[in-house]
């Protein structure tokens, strides 16, 4: 049996970065400048910059296909040829692989350059089919655009072009047309340099070179959609968007992705009132233009036939459609009755982590003012403490990882749960040479870039932390004693209590020269929701609900309730025991989402009165008394707050189907009918109220975000955050000693409501699988791909076995909330037996 932890130290690969390209973006101290001449005009440019980038930043666009600002240069397409005066006279060089030098004279549009550009384009078009009218890229195609702007206008080639079968699917999401490919290697470099899963590569050579996958090994990357976006021709196209629209017919607005707490910036593109695609927008602070496939393709639920369009009330045991007036009056009447009988203690509000800050503020105000309760929580029993998440001392920014000496990642597999952050950490470790330490119960997506990786048995996190503190892992101690350490902490496994992450943060703060903490949580706008007070122990603006905090709110809200509120777990238990009589769910599906669904199922069965505001009927609200249709992503505007506390604007561009309304509007109406108006007129006025009422949000108005802080504003702007939570080191339980321990972790694609209603992503969920170490599988008699029975004290079910070296001996890994997968709860002790056939 393995010991409490196994340590593996691997050497780090530091890919050398070509000077200039990525280095310039780092720019800490002001870089030195040199003087160059571009087309006869003298410019000061940063020393070491690439010619193509320096020229672009000074307003001269040099045409290019292979060069991409966020990737290393290769000089493959030859489109960026410019003429440089050299010691042996003028010569043509590629602007993307040459750095500026003092006194350099560059010509980007003289006759020699023009002739070279025309020749390159003529060659590129020798094989490229002229099928622009039926190509998805047509109208937004760099090859098309540059053929017009820099091409010869005519071709001398009369030969037959290359022929390939087309299009071929290289994954469930991406189609490849090899005839259109100009071999720029943007897609292959992205998958190698950026996402770290090089499953596409060049194949063959010379005239028959193509990009392709290995046979029967599809391009199943979580980031495959980015290759569609950066393909400078129509070679890679989206299966989902194929032939759906022409670019000139699309309306678009900038917004933030809501599947990921980093909030990657993106453009929502709409035709005929329907969201058709999302495209990454380059934002220095967050996503660098990249999107995970979940953020890119996980919007189809918006136009699902299953969307709720009308208020539903229960009548003779059935949910039937009704009017807003009827539905809300019913709820208001019930709220009044219950409040008069038992006061605010019997109300519970769960959810709000998926909406905007304005929605969350409305929920928070509604709960405190109308329901008179602090029983409100946006976390679903799977998160760290609310004060640690919202207001930890030394909270870091995502960008801090770029300049760190050490990144400690002790938490979930970022590739599965926080894909935007995963790309940033991968870049820091791979391109910027930052030392990365990963601690997790099994293999993670970043292991190949970690300079140190520790695994521990589920539930054994505290034991490992003690070992580290006792000096048993000197190399790790040393790494954590560095000057600048960023600790990314979260719950790695359901078996680890929420206190572990905070204890790790406390340890790192003590050890490091200067520590930055990035606590992780799930659900798109969880950090915004907590900032708006959607936790029993928080009020808007990171304020504790103590006497002073309540007094400060009294003027605008009336005195908020003083009683101590319940968190989600206590609320669910309270419903079961009859302490809670009224449950309001806002975009929450506890039955699917809490780690131990038995508790949620019991609560839903015994609840006296349940009201749900949601986009869909789900496993939690199917038995509700009233279900109210809400507005989804891109159907409302507002602000959202990401994991570093960055507030960004999200925007409306599509209509809400049927009679759906934004959460805040529903709650404002309901408050009015319940006789306790909360005075919310529109989203922008709510934002203004937040900026006045919530201390940390002082000064953050929509105007500020739209005109001054285009990359978002990090709260607090000034030192106005009242709460500063010092992470506390706690003692945890001893690790269980059973020979097999259960590790339940989240995966990017699961059976959540939004993905279930997104046809492109639904088939990509892992399904009911269990990962077993081959040795454990042998003991259990389990074979790869065959069914096994997995039993814990909380649940049991049949799963398909995957023999996996990445799962250490003694650990049984089950992905959470998969289609067909039975819930197993949070108990770590597990039995696995092969199912006889």
């Amino acid at each position: 049996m393995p010991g409490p932890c196994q340590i593996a130290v691997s050497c780090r690969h530091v890919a050398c970065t070509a000077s200039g390209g990525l280095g310039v973006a780092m720019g800490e101290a002001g870089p030195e400048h040199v003087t160059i001449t571009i087309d006869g005009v003298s410019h000061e440019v940063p020393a070491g910059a690439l010619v193509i980038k320096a020229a672009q930043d000074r307003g001269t666009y040099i045409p290019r296909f292979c060069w991409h600002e966020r990737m290393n240069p290769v000089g493959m397409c030859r489109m960026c040829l410019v003429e440089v005066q050299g010691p042996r006279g003028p010569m043509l060089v590629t602007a993307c692989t040459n750095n500026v030098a003092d006194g350099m004279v560059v010509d980007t549009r003289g006759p020699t350059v023009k002739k070279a550009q025309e020749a390159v384009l003529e060659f590129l078009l020798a094989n490229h089919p002229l099928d622009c009218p039926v190509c998805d890229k047509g109208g937004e195609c760099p090859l098309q655009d540059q053929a017009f702007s820099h091409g010869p206008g005519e071709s001398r080639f009369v030969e037959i072009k290359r022929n390939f079968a087309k299009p071929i699917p290289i994954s469930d999401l991406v189609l490849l047309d090899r005839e259109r490919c100009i071999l720029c290697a943007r897609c292959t470099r992205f998958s190698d340099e950026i996402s770290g899963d090089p499953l596409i590569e060049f194949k063959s050579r010379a005239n028959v070179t193509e990009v392709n996958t290995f046979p029967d090994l599809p391009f199943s990357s979580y980031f495959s959609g980015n290759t569609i976006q950066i393909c400078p021709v129509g070679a890679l196209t989206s299966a989902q968007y194929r032939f759906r629209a022409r670019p000139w017919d699309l309306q678009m607005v900038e917004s933030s992705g809501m599947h990921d707490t980093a909030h990657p910036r993106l453009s929502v593109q709409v035709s005929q009132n329907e969201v058709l695609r999302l495209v990454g927008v380059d934002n220095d602070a967050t996503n660098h233009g990249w999107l995970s496939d979940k953020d890119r393709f996980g919007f189809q639920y918006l136009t699902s036939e299953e969307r709720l369009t009308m208020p539903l009330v229960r009548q003779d045991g059935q949910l039937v459609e009704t009017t807003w007036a009827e539905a809300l009056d019913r709820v208001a009447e019930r709220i009044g009755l219950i409040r008069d009988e038992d006061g605010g203690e019997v109300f519970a509000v769960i959810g709000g982590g998926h909406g905007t800050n304005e929605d969350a503020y409305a929920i928070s105000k509604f709960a405190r003012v109308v329901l008179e309760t602090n029983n409100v929580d946006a976390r679903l029993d799977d998160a760290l403490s609310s004060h640690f998440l919202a207001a930890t001392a030394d909270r870091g920014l995502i960008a801090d990882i770029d300049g760190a000496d050490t990144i400690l990642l002790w938490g979930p597999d970022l590739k599965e749960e926080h894909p935007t952050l995963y790309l940033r950490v991968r870049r820091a470790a791979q391109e910027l040479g930052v030392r990365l330490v990963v601690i997790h119960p099994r293999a993670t997506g970043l292991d190949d870039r970690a300079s140190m990786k520790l695994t521990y048995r589920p539930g054994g996190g505290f034991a490992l932390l003690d070992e580290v503190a006792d000096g048993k892992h000197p190399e790790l101690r040393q790494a954590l004693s560095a000057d600048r350490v960023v600790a990314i902490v979260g719950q790695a496994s359901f078996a680890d209590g929420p206190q572990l992450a905070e204890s790790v943060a406390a340890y790192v703060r003590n050890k490091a020269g200067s520590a930055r903490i990035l606590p992780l949580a799930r659900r798109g706008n969880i950090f915004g929701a907590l900032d708006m007070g959607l936790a029993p122990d928080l009020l808007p603006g990171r304020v504790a609900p103590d006497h002073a905090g309540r007094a400060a709110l009294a003027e605008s809200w009336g005195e908020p309730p003083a009683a101590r509120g319940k968190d989600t777990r206590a609320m669910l238990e309270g419903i079961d025991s009859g302490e809670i009589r009224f449950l309001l769910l806002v975009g929450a599906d506890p039955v699917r989402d809490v780690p131990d669904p038995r508790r949620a199922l019991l609560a839903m069965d015994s609840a006296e009165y349940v009201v749900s505001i949601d986009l869909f009927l789900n496993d939690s609200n199917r038995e509700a008394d009233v279900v109210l249709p809400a507005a989804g992503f891109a159907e409302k505007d507002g602000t959202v707050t990401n994991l570093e506390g960055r507030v960004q604007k999200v925007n409306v561009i599509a209509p809400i189907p049927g009679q759906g309304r934004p959460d805040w509007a529903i709650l404002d109406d309901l408050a009015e009918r319940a006789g306790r108006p909360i005075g919310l007129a529109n989203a922008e006025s709510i934002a203004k109220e937040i900026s006045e009422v919530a201390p940390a949000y002082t000064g953050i108005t929509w105007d500020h975000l739209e005109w001054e802080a285009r990359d978002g504003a990090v709260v607090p702007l000034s030192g106005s955050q009242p709460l500063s939570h010092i992470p506390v080191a706690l003692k945890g339980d001893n690790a269980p000693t059973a020979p097999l321990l259960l590790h339940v972790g989240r995966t990017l694609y699961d059976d959540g409501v939004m993905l279930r209603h997104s046809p492109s992503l639904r088939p990509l969920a892992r399904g009911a699988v269990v990962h077993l170490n081959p040795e454990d599988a042998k003991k259990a008699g389990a074979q790869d791909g065959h069914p096994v029975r997995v039993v814990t004290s909380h649940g049991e079910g049949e799963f398909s076995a995957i023999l996996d070296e990445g799962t250490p001996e003694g650990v049984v890994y089950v992905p959470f909330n998969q289609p067909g997968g039975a819930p197993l709860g949070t108990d770590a002790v597990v039995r696995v037996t092969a199912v006889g056939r």
Partner: protein
Amino acid sequence: MSHWSEATQERAREIIARYPQKRSAVMPLLYLAMAEEGYLTNEGMEEVARWVDITPAQVQAVATFYTMYKRRPTGRYLVSCCTSISCMLLGGDDVLHAVEDESGVPHGETGADGLLSVEHVECIGACGGAPAVQVNYELIEGVTPDKARDLVRWLDTARPDVVNTDEMQELFGGVRSFDWAIREGEGAKGPYPAFQALGTVGREGET
């Protein structure tokens, strides 16, 4: 879990140990994979990928770039006729046609009996002794169409376990680029290059 023989695995370990980075061993390991199975299969490429810790797609990129990695079954003897400029000027095409005609195997293909594969190749560095032919990458220089026919007949009847450049040069060759070159007795035992490190030489230890 390797599908390779223990001896091949041992060689793979030795080769990988020579490089600071595992992935640098991809090319020699591809020859090992060929020697193991006779040609390079998808399974062979996957195996190499596991050994050097890169993806099969990356291995395929290398394997498909170089023509000496044969991804189809190859005959016991691979006859490569040079048709680059020096050989072409001195009758390389006639030599190729003679080989094709005598063996009944068009270039780019393998005979039905699996004995012979014929290919035309670009320059094999024997311009001084053009036209040149290789059998299992063992060089013969100054070949005439008639000698080429003799060579094909000899391979068919003698069926040597090991082909050796010096032996074949004496039987079928003419002008050599470097007649003072050191003789080497090792020879090749299959349609892949003979290297000590790969264990693909015909008679190990001989020189």
